[in-house]
């Protein structure tokens, strides 16, 4: 079973993602900010992380650059999910090494397809 880590501080958004991906047969983990993501990574290595950018304590950008520092995390696919929608932001996210940048609001169906697509690459 593939593992997905959802990192977002908006509880109601997390609920939908958790429900949708559990139902689709993934094992789902949840982090409410960047520090929790890094905490969790010590125990579990997910296949994919859905990463919000504007989070308290440690934002998505910093979390991503932390993750990229560790060799064994290199295989983890990262999708930025963000309400920041400008070209500049998207550019920045992708340049930092994210595999995809999806703007909010998004379609769950399309997001699932993207997730599936990324996970099949391996």
């Amino acid at each position, binding site marked *: 079973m593939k593992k997905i880590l959802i990192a977002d501080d908006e509880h109601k958004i997390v*609920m939908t993602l958790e429900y949708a991906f559990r139902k689709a047969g993934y094992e789902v983990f949840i982090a409410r900010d960047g520090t929790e993501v890094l905490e969790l990574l010590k125990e579990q290595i997910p296949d994919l992380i859905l990463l919000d950018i504007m989070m308290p304590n440690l934002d998505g950008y910093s979390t991503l650059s932390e993750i990229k520092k560790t060799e064994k995390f290199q295989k983890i696919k990262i999708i930025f999910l963000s309400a920041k929608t400008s070209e500049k932001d998207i550019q920045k996210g992708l340049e930092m090494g994210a595999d995809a940048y999806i703007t909010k609001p998004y379609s769950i169906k399309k997001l699932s397809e993207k997730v599936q697509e990324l996970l099949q690459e391996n």
Partner: protein
Amino acid sequence: MGCRCCWCIYFQFGCFLHLLRFYFSKNSMNSWFLFILVILYLGILFFIAYFAEKKRGSFWLNNPYFYSLSLAVYCSAWTYYGSIGVAAKSGLEYLTIFIGPVIIIPTWIFVNTKIVRISRVNKISSIADFISLRYGNHRTLGALVTVVCLFAIIPYLGLQIKAISESFHLLTQTQNSENIFFDNATYVVLIIALFSSYYGTRYVDASEKRLGIIAAVAIESLLKLIFFIILGLFVVYGVFNGFEDLYKQASQLPDFEKLNTIAGLEGSSNWFLLCLLSMTAIFLLPRQFHTAIIENRKEKHIKTAIWLFPLYLLLINFFVFPISWGGNVLFADQSVNTDFYSILIPQKMGNQFISAIVFLGGLSASISMIIISSISLSVMLSNNLIIPYGWLNTFKINSESDNSKNIVNIRKFSILILIILAFVFYKYLIVENSLFSIGLIAFVLIAQLSPSFFGAIFWRRGNFYGAVSGIIAGIVICYLELIIPNYFPTWQFYLKIDYISPIANTFFWSLLVNAGLYCIVSVSTIGNYRERNFAELYVDINDYIHNHENAYIWRGTANISDIQKILIKFLGEKKTEQALKIFNLKYNISDESDTADARFIKFSENLLSGRIGTASAKILIEGVTKEDKISLPEVLKILEESKEHISTNKQLREQGLQLKNLSEDLQNANENLILKDQQKDDFLDSVAHELRTPITAIRATSEILLDDDEMPLEIKTEFLENIISEVDRLTEIINDILYLDKLEAGTLPLQISENNILETYQKALKPLKQLMEQKKLHHTEINLLDDEILNYDEMKMIQVFQNILGNAVKFTPEQGIIQVKFRKKEDQIRISIFNTGKNIPEEDLEFIFDKFYQSKNQNIRKPMGSGLGLAICKKIITAHQGKIAAKNKETGVVFEINLPS
């Protein structure tokens, strides 16, 4: 809180009426019982006055109806008993006393507005100040006016005491005791004296408004009206069978026809003169001047008074006629004092309850009159007689606290002396005379002030010599014609028109001579330049209202530091400094030079006027300055120029300022535009971001709900609930954005009014209490303010408190503490709201009031809400000229709001 107090009054009053009804099931009235009734009634008045002083800012005290009702202090015991007596004996003559005012009151909108303005800008605290200031601010004229008022009003006060005492004895059917210590009426008078001297002298500054007293008088006015109407209804429908029956029976009395017509030329000249007399009285009686001018809080209240007060007079007079003729019918073959028909009728019918109510109504009428008259007279006595003629040197030596204490004590002492004098007059000097005629004599004496009073506001040439000679001549004639014949019946005076009544005759001759002398002497002597200066200021007050200190002409050498020393003697160090600061701010004076100009002299005199009167203020300031003489033509020239100057200068200064501002604006415009553009972009980004978050949740949730048929019910419910709450969140954000935009654009002006800050806080706190209880938070309040009344927009202030408290509730852990403290700090009101939540990172402290600010480092969950709450708070507080800041403390976080006091 307010509610509880109202309820308390209501309860007291309810008990009181109940007691009355219970007692009157018996037939006779015990004098101790009545005495206790009076004490109880006075207790209610004390309570109203106390309550009103405490709630100075409250809306119901500041409405125009209180002002209008307090004017009804005009209807003294004389109205209650005297006019019935006159109507019974002499027919329609009583009406003149009310018709005069009703005719003249509409002119208040012009005349009283003018007088109120003059009094306000010159800090005038009595009619003596008003007249003497206009004629060059001589203490002689102030003293003369005071003496006239004293001679007129002390017998009039005696009359009120007589009414209280006689109605008391009539009701209890006891004899008036020769030994004053065994007479209950003595003690009632004593209590009234204490009440007036306590509540009437609460402020050293006599031009301050006395809310407590005015509220009590207004309530009394209402009560006396209601009681009188009850009596009227009782007579018409209880004793007789309606108006028709009463009229039928009365019209059979022998003199009915004669008394109810205005008899020919004689009658109509009498009528005309008496109407004229009461017209002057409504302006000049010290109690009327006090309630209408000194206690006027807003000019627009006059607008309400000009219809409400005549209506009041109409209502209170409506039943005079039926009651007096009812009395004439009932007592047709007995000789009784017609003045007391209002008590005798219910007594005869065996209805003790109504007669007690009438007694209380009469008592109300007397008490209000005694209180207001004694306060206004005591201010005159202290500020125009005692202080300028005996205390100035003492004041120069003593400290501020001693001086303030002395001033208040002089006034307290004056009130006591006045009431005692009135009592002595009533006991030992009163000649058997009906209530009506003593009242009229007082009117005629007071009317002697009318030429110089009305001249003051309409005629520039009127001068000091004219005013003094007119008043003295008028008074002499009054004494020769009216007072002396009372004691020496054989005396005859030769100024006489045979067919009019003695009082109208005296009024006519004295005023003719008075006004004549005033005019003739004024035009034939040369006035002092100072009075010409004030003449301009009085007559053209509407032109000078915003700039009155500029219209004061003074030339000479004076040092600010010398004047300051005098001010400190009366205001204390702190207030003086504050006043000087205000002065400098108002006139844009920044240099440190010690030379005082005309504006400063006038400003300083004004500061002292309320405390020691205008004349004494002038004398004190004169003592430390050296004034150069200016010739009269020069003054006129300066005034003419200054009139133009005031307007052109103002225009020029405004234009200069505008130009300067404009160029500065232009200079900044570019940078601002660029900055604004950037800010707008940032703001829009933030808005978009904030809107996207709930939309994302709604979008995703709905999508799942749409696609998934097998979803368990509880999850489905939760999802649907989420949609609703996210929609609410969206709405809140949109509303806040629009609100903030309005605040910034200024389309939502502040609705500033006087409010109690503690009460406002309570209103904000109320809806949050439940949340606090759920989290077991301890909420405490500390109030270190002396005066909780501030000017601000209450609705917006509630929002500020709610936003801060809302955050505090969110961020404080369970069983934490939220503490609010109100205190005064360096002339500011500081409100600190503390909570034991985690500290805000230091680098964030100054940004948390930005729109949509969210800390990058906050180690707390993002709060629910629009992210605009604190930005709105800051906008509101800044609009109030205040400041808001957040600070970290060892144990938590504190939000400090500073408001100007």
